């Protein structure tokens, strides 16, 4: 079982390959809405009005993209190397918790950008550290990493909640949460907008990851390991060391995603906070065929749906979870059209 990419299905223009299934999925979603007695046109107009054509809504969409892009970058690294790091959610949350726990104190004690740089480094280190046990088990004993990383997620959630309730808790706040980073001290915003510099950082990171994975010797080595570990071993590559490197880089990127979310937007981690972005980004990255630029487009569509869909669902008196059905439809139909497109080319 390999996660490595099959570089098929590029015959149709990329935008068409993405657009046709999107329209189909939205069409089926519209039928479901009509069956429930809601006005589908109004619903989708509400989504777009909220998330794209509204100044603050569009900014919220862009802000939501920052952690998702970093998670996508994290997944691109490990999937291209044939490793399933499904522990992103645990790495994300634990890194966010650590960054948030020290944010207020470090920003007060150090020059601003030094503090921020250290917090990002801390988050990356915590994320990477949380992946070391699965990396070791995989590299040393060949233990399946899907199992071990999924388990580390649950351990990460528990540990994070425990730390917030004990060591990292803000004693002055009644609910268990870390010390709040004041709005003025969060990542600076661009111009007069809500969009913070973390969004640009995330865009640059995913593009850099794409270039490293497709255009450098290091990326090539990782892809060889992903396609055929045994051949890589015979070619003289140190597969064990590369396995550690992949887990460390992938999990560090997931940690950075946690830092961006906390230092850019939230300013605090509550003990019961579980964004669970990881599992949502996995299929997006698959559909982008591990391509960094395509992943940006898919992440944008997802962000529009979740920002706009939230208010549209509320207005239509539907539960927010209705959007999950839309997500599922888009994923399945994208997968089907992808298959049909690659069959048509023979």
């Amino acid at each position, binding site marked *: 079982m390999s996660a490595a990419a099959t570089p098929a299905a590029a015959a149709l223009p990329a935008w068409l390959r993405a657009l046709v299934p999107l329209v189909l999925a939205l069409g089926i979603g519209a039928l479901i809405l009509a069956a429930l007695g809601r006005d589908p046109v109004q619903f989708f107009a509400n989504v777009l009005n909220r998330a794209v054509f509204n100044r603050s809504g569009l900014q919220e969409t862009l802000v939501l993209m920052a952690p998702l892009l970093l998670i996508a970058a994290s997944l691109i690294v490990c999937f291209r190397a044939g490793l399933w790091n499904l522990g992103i959610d645990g790495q994300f949350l634990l890194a966010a918790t650590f960054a948030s726990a020290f944010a207020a104190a470090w920003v007060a004690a150090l020059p601003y950008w030094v503090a921020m740089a250290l917090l990002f480094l801390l988050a990356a280190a915590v994320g990477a550290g949380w992946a070391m046990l699965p990396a070791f088990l995989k590299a040393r004993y060949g233990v399946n990493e899907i199992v071990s990383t*999924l388990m*580390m997620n*649950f351990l990460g959630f528990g540990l994070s909640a425990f730390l917030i309730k004990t060591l990292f808790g803000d004693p002055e706040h009644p609910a268990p949460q870390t010390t709040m980073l004041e709005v003025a001290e969060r990542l600076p915003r661009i111009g007069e907008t809500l969009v913070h510099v973390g969004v640009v950082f995330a865009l640059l990171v995913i593009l850099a990851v794409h270039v490293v994975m497709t255009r450098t010797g290091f990326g090539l080595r990782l892809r060889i390991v992903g396609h055929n570990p045994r051949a890589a071993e015979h070619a003289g590559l140190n597969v064990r060391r590369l396995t550690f490197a992949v887990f460390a880089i992938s999990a560090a990127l997931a940690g950075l995603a946690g830092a961006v979310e906390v230092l850019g937007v939230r300013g605090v981690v509550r003990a019961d906070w579980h964004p669970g972005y990881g599992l949502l980004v996995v299929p997006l990255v698959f559909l982008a065929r591990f391509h960094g630029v395509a992943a940006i487009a898919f992440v944008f569509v997802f962000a529009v749906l979740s920002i706009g869909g939230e208010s549209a669902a509320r207005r239509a008196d539907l539960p927010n*979870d209705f959007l999950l059905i839309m997500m599922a439809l888009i994923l*399945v139909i994208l997968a089907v059209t992808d298959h049909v497109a690659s069959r048509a080319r023979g």
Partner: protein
Amino acid sequence: MDALFTNAFLVAFVSGTIAASLPLLLAGLGEQMSEKAGVLNLGLEGMMLVGAFCGFAVALETGSFLLGFLAGAAGGMAVAAMMAALCVALPLNQIVVGIALTLGMQGATSLAHHVLYSRTFPRLPRQPEVALPLLSQIPVLGPSLFTQNPVVYLALLLVPAAAWLYRATNIGLNLAAAGSKPAALDLAGVSVTATRAFAVLATGALGGLGGAYMANIGAGLFVPFMTGGAGFMAIVIAMLARGRPAWVLGGALLVGFATSITTALQVAGFNIPTDLVLMLPFGTIMLVLTLFGRRAGLPAALGLPYHRGAR
């Protein structure tokens, strides 16, 4: 006083362990069959949720506990049929479709709950239980251990039944071949598609049954997202068990044990941080992995679609 205290502790512990293990056992046995045949079924969580919803809705409507469970299994199979159509009949990516089905079913059951029950929040009455003769009369533990819903006995009987199926029947051999060398199975004149579809549908039925147990027996009601990751835990247990049904039972009991020790310790008046205790089952699995999981022998063709004639 002390004796009563211990009894309350033991009873809470034993019934908690069974309630937590049983859905994992059913879903884990199902996932094991699917993995054996080469399909990594990440839609299991969605199948359990649909099973929980259908099981609850039908049991509530008809008042029949048996019809409820049948509906739960049927609901799980309906989701499994989608999985089979997309990932067995069509060679789509099992991970993408599995996650999509789980997400979609989370949304669908939450929506259905919103439409049907969000204003009334109905509950089921206590479901019938069967006391095993003699065994249930053992003092202290007997009543809580041997007075169970019939589904519990069925699930336990499934463990040797599955072991027999894998070891001694053609179906079992076909399943294993579909997972490790599908081309060989095809050459032997057996349809890989049919074999895998059978396995996926069986997974759906068992997962749905597990979900229905959670809703109808465990909770007595349906709430959105009520499976809470049990499907993913069952996947992990099935992977660890490497094709041996008895190990699924062991894994499910281990996780159920670690889950219920929290409640039982609270009943006994120990005050330990819940967050740490909730980590116990997962920590246990990591420990087991570190100590014993060294040669994870998964089927060679797991997760790979089968194209006839492709090399």
